[in-house]
């Protein structure tokens, strides 16, 4: 998957989790937590969705690396190419 495709995959997950959220202005460099008010349970939800959809297994120690869109895309790239 290209960076853009990975980004879209994460956007799709976010819009399923928060259907009322406008994601068109998401700042890729800013933490999800601040922009979308996502808490640790929501972050876990993103990780579970990635596992469900793309069979990516993310170890618990790495959860913190998925804090922004840019970091998430970077982290997922080797797993999804």
């Amino acid at each position: 998957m290209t960076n853009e495709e990975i980004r879209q995959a994460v956007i799709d997950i976010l819009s399923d989790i928060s259907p009322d959220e406008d994601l068109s202005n998401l700042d890729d460099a800013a933490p999800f937590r601040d922009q979308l008010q996502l808490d640790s349970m929501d972050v876990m939800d993103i990780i579970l969705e990635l596992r469900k959809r793309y069979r990516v297994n993310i170890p618990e120690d790495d959860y913190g690396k998925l804090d922004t869109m840019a970091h998430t895309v970077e982290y997922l790239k080797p797993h999804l190419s």
Partner: protein
Amino acid sequence: MYDTVIIGAGMSGLAAGIRLAHYNKRVCILERHKMVGGLNSYYQQSGRNYDVGLHAITNYAQKGTKTGPLSRLLRHLRFKWEELALVPQIGSTIAFPGVSLRFANDIALFESEIARNFPVQIDGFRKMIGELIDYNQIGMGTDGGSAREFVARHISDPLLTEMLFCPLLYYGGARENDMEFAQFCIMFRSIFLEGFARPYQGVRLILQKLLQKFKGLGGELRLRAGVTEILSRNGRAEKLLLEDGGEIHAKQFLSSAGWRETMRLCYESGKTQEQFPAGRLSFVETISVLRHDPKKLGHDRTIVFYNDSPSFVYEKPDSLVDVRSGVICSPNNFDYAEPLGEGMIRITALANYDRWASLDEKQYRLEKMRWYDRMIDSAVRFVPDFRNQVIDTDMFTPLTIRRFTGHENGAVYGAPEKKYDGRTHLDNLYVCGTDQGMVGVVGSLVSGVTIANKYLLGGE
């Protein structure tokens, strides 16, 4: 083999089931009754729809709200805000002799009422809110001691203290006269800071949505499937024995039956964990169908919490019912676009399970009629007299609660000690629901989601 089998299709069991099914787990919910919902259920009688359990949903949040238990819950269950179609309350009242405090889904009203009636206390009240608002709301609290001690640090007027505790205890108090600090914070926020709402169609809408979602995701539900025993080996639950003689295997088990009730399923009779006390607090509820909307009688309050003396007693009464205090709920009095039609008034009061359980069938029917009248007589001291408007009635007792929750003593809010971490002595058996420490509809749903997330959605 199932990944997870869940005991009980109440709110918490259904919520956990949805989470698991969403993540492709093979999951089955076993429900003893022929309907889902547990305490929160509904029925028809003489062509009328009745709700049981839920007076109102707490933790109301407007569409677009991102924080708070309701928003979190909607995200985790993948519901759109509109699906629950929550309509906010008109407004509620705490009525004690000589003082009434109104509140609604905006703390400003409650604050102004307290400032007006208890001017010396308002600063303490605001400071108290500031402290409790930061408290962890996720549902994994710990026992932080007595709520009364916490409140006493901020509020010195005993009357105001009782008036604050009355709604919180009635809507979630598993202990007599006090609450755990953690419970108090959760309840205070859910009632006074976020507030009440209800779908136009009542609890049936919520249960239908949950069930639809669960089944749509491939979850299995077995009704009339009571569990009689949880069999274990080497510290792990292995299978469940069912009332019909069948058995069911799974990798993991989640019980919403209550702590003691679950422990009892784990051991042969006589070996239950008696060191863990049972709840004692149960309720009766009268339901009065009125010819007209109660607003026509001048009654527009959503909920009225009343108490007829300055001190409020939240204990198992010696008599069948304690009519000194109660909760009057009018499902009509939410801010609907269209009125509900017929009026309905439900009144809840404390009751003694053992006394009701000792009656024979004829006495039971007689006492229901007798106490229906006494409860209404007590309640109309605090709301307009609606007695000449009544066209139909029903009543449930602690025995009804026992039947639908399975809780010992008909203890609505379960045991006084909560098991916040949801774990048991068996590696793969967890508990959710009331005894995991969450009450109310939103609380129960959050409990199911939290325990499923924490323990049941781990590695493959």
